[in-house]
């Protein structure tokens, strides 16, 4: 890979010297922070959850749904569920104001609730009283001296709920700027060079094609990753400002809790994705005469990737393993799984391997294309 560092360094300097690119992809997001926070301050503060009813879910109890009263002008319903409690509480059907009573193990009943939510905490108390009363009576009837005591109260981790929103949004928030940035930078890196007549001088040098291509891909990947990082960073910062100013958080990051390990894993997948997109961008750019043509040619890729990230926003529960093989969509799934603390090792490995295989395939195609006449004339 002789010369790859020099190509990379030169490309990075070129981007840094191009002030319009820097303004569009680094400074503009910073400026939008102030605008968005300002708009947020003008909006009324959120008054709570937009739910029609409060629910007390039961697992392992064969009952039909019925209304047990009302609270704050909203009806409280008892409902039966069939899904596993651990999965159900992370699904979108389970709201902050709900509780779930797991009766699958009669020796130890588990009640899931949101400690931070007044309604949920209230329902939890009612559910606990109901369980204790019912089972105490049942136990007393069975044998003398026996009593039912084991009720486990599970305050659902704040992270599971606050992260749910950001888990839904993050793939979209990351993929949209990433594809847009890469389309721009990759278009300029080769098609732009060809139009300016600066590409041939490098082609004439003894730098191996692999080094030339990799140097360009790495620079596009890095600047796009930094730019997307700026977007995400701005959102995190915006959430913090909204939180501090006690205004509605329009950025979606308020209260999000992610471990260092999860951040590193998300970053690792983002790097892989970035590399894959950059490679695709460079491949398309090779066949275009100028940056504008390359940007137009990259629109379908951007659209498909954005669509995949949007589709992932509307999935519920877990996805079949085969979905983790679909490029781009699979990375959205793994981001969501990581943020919802339900990522499985085999799925993570499957996503990483599928992205790597695809990236290597695109690289081979790019190298073969680099030698083609269409690129060299």
């Amino acid at each position, binding site marked *: 890979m*002789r*010369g790859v560092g*020099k*190509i990379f360094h*030169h490309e990075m*300097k*070129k981007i840094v*010297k*191009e002030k319009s690119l820097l303004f569009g992809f680094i400074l503009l997001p910073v400026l939008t922070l102030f605008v968005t926070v300002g708009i947020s301050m003008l909006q009324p503060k959120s008054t709570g959850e937009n739910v029609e009813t409060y629910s007390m879910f039961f697992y392992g109890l064969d009952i039909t749904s019925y209304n047990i009263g009302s609270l704050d002008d909203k009806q409280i319903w008892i409902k039966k569920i069939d899904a596993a409690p651990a999965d159900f509480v992370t699904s979108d059907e389970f709201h902050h104001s709900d509780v779930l009573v797991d009766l699958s193990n009669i020796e130890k009943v588990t009640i899931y609730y949101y400690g931070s939510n007044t309604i949920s905490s209230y329902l939890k108390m009612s559910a606990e009283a109901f369980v204790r009363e019912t089972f105490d009576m049942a136990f007393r009837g069975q044998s003398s001296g026996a009593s039912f005591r084991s009720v486990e109260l599970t305050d659902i981790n704040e992270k599971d709920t606050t992260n749910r929103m950001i888990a839904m949004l993050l793939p979209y928030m990351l993929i949209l700027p990433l594809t847009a940035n890469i389309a721009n930078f990759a278009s300029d890196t080769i098609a732009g060079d060809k139009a*300016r*007549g*600066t590409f*041939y*001088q*490098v*082609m*004439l*040098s*003894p*730098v*191996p*094609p692999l080094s030339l291509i990799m140097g360009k891909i790495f620079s596009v990947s890095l600047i796009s990753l930094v730019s997307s990082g700026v977007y995400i960073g701005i959102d995190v910062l915006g959430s913090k400002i909204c939180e501090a100013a006690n205004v509605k958080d329009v950025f979606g990051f308020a209260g999000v809790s992610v471990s260092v390990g999860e951040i590193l894993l998300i970053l690792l997948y983002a790097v892989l994705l970035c590399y894959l997109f950059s490679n695709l961008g460079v491949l398309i750019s090779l066949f275009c005469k100028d940056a504008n043509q390359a940007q137009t040619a990259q629109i379908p890729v951007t659209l498909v990737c954005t669509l995949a990230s949007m589709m992932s926003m509307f999935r519920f529960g877990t996805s079949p393993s085969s979905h983790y093989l679909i490029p781009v969509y699979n990375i959205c799934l793994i981001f969501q799984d990581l943020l919802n603390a339900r990522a499985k090792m085999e799925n993570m490995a499957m996503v990483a391997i599928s992205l790597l295989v695809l990236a290597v395939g695109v690289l081979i195609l790019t190298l073969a294309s680099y*030698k083609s*006449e*269409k690129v*060299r*004339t």
Partner: protein
Amino acid sequence: MITIEHLKKTFKKNKVEAVKDVSLEIRDGEIFALLGPNGAGKTTTMRMLSTLLLPTSGKIFFDGKELKPNDEQIRSRITFLTNEIRLDGQFTPDELADYYGGLYEMPNEKINSRKDELFDYFGISEFRNRRYDTFSTGMKQKTSLAICLLHDPDTIIFDEPTNGLDILTQQLIEAYLLKLKEQGKCIILSTHILDLVARMADRVGIIVDGKSVFCGTVAELPGSQGVETIDQAFIKLYKENHEEKAIVGRHGNG
């Protein structure tokens, strides 16, 4: 020395036979002028020589060694300058020289000494820290030339090197080409200026409709065609070979 044997290039996309049969011999320490009308195949031939394009058939030998695709060793010994080649406008001549010198794996001391020598010669020293895109056409051409020659190549391929330049810059470049010739370099020059050929070239190759129709010394060119000047010889060769093609074309069409 460069030997070209029956070089042929057909572009796959539009099936255009840009070069049909070109055979030339270019020696070290000489200026070899490549002549031909527009579209004759000169640029395609030079692109193949510079390794930018692969021939469809035929062979190119550099000092007896056959040129292979992506031959890094030969690439480091040649340079190719055309009007199409530009440098990154955001950079200064100094930065560009450091970058291209690095691509050719030149040590820093060598880069610096070559930079000083070439920048001084072409009058760039004063502007070495100014952005390339702020330069005039002539200054850009001189900078491109300095960068192309930075790695001290053995073979120099120039496609119309003085095109569009003022007389002073033309003279400067011509003088440098003669200096390179004295150093024993092999210089291939494509031009339409026959006066330049008469003044500078030792030998000449003429391509008409993708075929080499003459390869010899400048002195023997007019005599070989039974005329008095290079201009007349060129026109005669062109008419003979171009007409031949036209007749074949008509026959071909029935």
